[in-house]
């Protein structure tokens, strides 16, 4: 349970809000590289942290992320012409470069220097691992580039999608660290989904529906260990890392690619659910990539030409009561991503946490909220750089392994939890 003011604190990420300021300390996924594929391609409008922005790649391939609206009369520059190293407003021809600097005001003499006095707000936009990342904080505090393993392996070893989720970011992210729902909501997919099935560890999930949890703070966030009974004197551990503020990893299954998410606020009532899959030591197979494109695993099928899931609230998520009744899916919704999203969107645009009733096993969620509030307060009061900004904090891996009963998971899985170049994931 959160008091209303706490819920507001954690769910509002617009400019000037405490959580908004916290988010503005980090590099965040803004677009897929495929959205700006070549110089002078069509610009893309986007909203992040409640700010309307325009992204474009200029004639030299430079990336820009600027205020969406022309400084002259407020026209959306999405209608602009991306030409000759700038985006030109179609209304009166004002032109802006990737830094937001106005470089041409056709109605004014060049000698007047009028254009030099006009500059749109801009943010850095960099390409890494097939993703365009932005940093929306103070320029003097810009951190080093992100080092999450999925964006540092060769491109043929990694695959990223994003989908629109019409809910506040926090209820989406909390699903990513809530390990106890997997045995229920996603139970059908462990044996059917091509990106999950066949792993030896799956049997432990299916046999033991009451995992026991341990939550341990980590430099960048949390490690949440869920343990289930295994053979002899061993436990089957599934360890979920959370890196502040919005990166979560799903513990792996067998030799399937590793996956997880970023949950990036669009505004307070919607977010982008980014879904990555990668393998640390080998290229993804054609079958794996094909399955991911087909919406298997944590990915979804799209409404063609968009990043909106094909199963969405406008079609009741293609609810299939017969499949639910037959036990083919537990909730009647197909696919892990939409099983989660359908329930999280059903909470309403911003979940009212004053009415929830958490239990002891929800401590991962409680601790994550606590750390977010603590970090936002420390940032506001002392300017403390929050956990998860340091790229060293990104070099964490999810793991699934068997450990003896008397071994502490953080110790026993110490090496497994480190991202190491050329070293395979630890998985059962």
């Amino acid at each position, binding site marked *: 349970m959160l008091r209303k003011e706490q819920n507001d604190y954690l769910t509002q990420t617009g400019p000037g809000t405490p959580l908004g300021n916290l988010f503005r300390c980090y590099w965040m996924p803004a677009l897929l590289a495929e959205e700006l594929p070549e110089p002078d391609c069509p610009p893309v409008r986007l909203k992040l942290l409640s700010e309307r922005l325009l992204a474009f790649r200029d004639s030299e391939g430079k990336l820009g992320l600027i205020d969406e609206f022309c400084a002259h009369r407020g026209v959306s520059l999405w209608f602009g012409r991306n030409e000759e190293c700038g985006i030109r407003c179609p209304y009166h021809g004002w032109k802006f470069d990737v830094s937001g600097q106005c470089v041409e005001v056709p109605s004014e003499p060049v000698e007047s220097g009028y254009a030099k006095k006009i500059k749109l707000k801009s943010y850095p936009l960099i390409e890494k691992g097939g993703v365009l990342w932005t940093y929306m904080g103070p320029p003097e505090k810009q951190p080093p580039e992100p080092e999450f393993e999925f964006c540092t392996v060769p491109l043929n070893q990694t695959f990223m999608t994003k989908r629109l989720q019409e809910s506040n970011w926090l209820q989406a992210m909390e699903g990513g660290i809530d390990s106890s729902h997997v045995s229920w909501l996603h139970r059908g997919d462990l044996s059917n989904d091509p990106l999950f099935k066949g792993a030896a560890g799956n049997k432990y999930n299916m046999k033991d529906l009451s995992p026991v949890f341990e939550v341990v703070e980590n430099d960048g966030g949390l490690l949440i260990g869920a343990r289930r009974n295994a053979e002899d004197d061993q436990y089957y551990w599934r360890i979920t890392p959370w890196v502040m503020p919005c990166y979560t990893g799903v513990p792996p299954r067998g030799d399937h690619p590793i996956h997880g998410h970023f949950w990036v606020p669009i505004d307070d009532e919607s977010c982008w659910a980014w879904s990555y899959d990668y393998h640390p030591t080998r290229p993804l197979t054609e079958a794996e990539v094909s399955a991911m494109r087909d919406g298997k695993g944590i990915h979804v099928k799209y409404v063609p030409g968009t990043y909106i899931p094909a199963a969405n609230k406008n079609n009741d998520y293609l609810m299939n009561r017969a499949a639910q009744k037959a036990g083919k899916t537990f909730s009647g919704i197909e696919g892990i991503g939409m099983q989660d999203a359908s329930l999280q969107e059903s909470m*309403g645009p911003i979940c009212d946490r004053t009415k929830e009733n958490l239990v002891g096993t929800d*401590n991962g969620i409680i601790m994550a909220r606590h750390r977010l509030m603590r970090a936002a307060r420390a940032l506001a009061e002392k300017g403390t750089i929050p956990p998860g900004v340091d790229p060293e904090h990104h070099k964490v891996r999810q793991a699934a392994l068997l450990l003896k009963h008397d071994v502490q998971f953080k110790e026993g899985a110490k090496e497994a939890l480190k991202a190491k170049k050329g070293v395979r994931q630890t998985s059962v």
Partner: protein
Amino acid sequence: MLSESARMTTAREASYRIQYPNSRERAVKVIALDPVAATVLEPISKGAWHGAAFFTSLNFAATATPGQGLDAWLKDVTGHAMNLISEVAASDFVVVITSVGEDARAVSVIADACKLHNKTLVGLIVPREGATDADVTASLADLRPYARMLVVASGADYIEAMLTALRA
């Protein structure tokens, strides 16, 4: 025409969520397992809690041994002795607090009481000055066999945050 889900997931529809309470007060027993944890717990106990009761020490009969003895008493923050079995029986769940590296083996006695009445035991390990990683490992080893959820917190402020979140 909008689908039912599209209509029902708007902010406007969320405002129609009924305002009646959906739960009753919880009886939560919060027990310090060692003197350092008791010192931490004492000021927290003075907060405005709903159904939480705080205990700063546990005593059990000399004849009893951890894991077997259930003849045990808890002392609350005002110094009153309460019977462990009765307290646990009247609870919804039990939270035990220990400081890193302190002897937390008494948890087994509480765990026996929880087992007897089928109550969930949550363990929380809070920091102590000068404690090492080995101390954390030792604390985890003490609590792991009994706790359904174990948390290693980096600050004692988490106790309050967790109890509030659990509506204690």
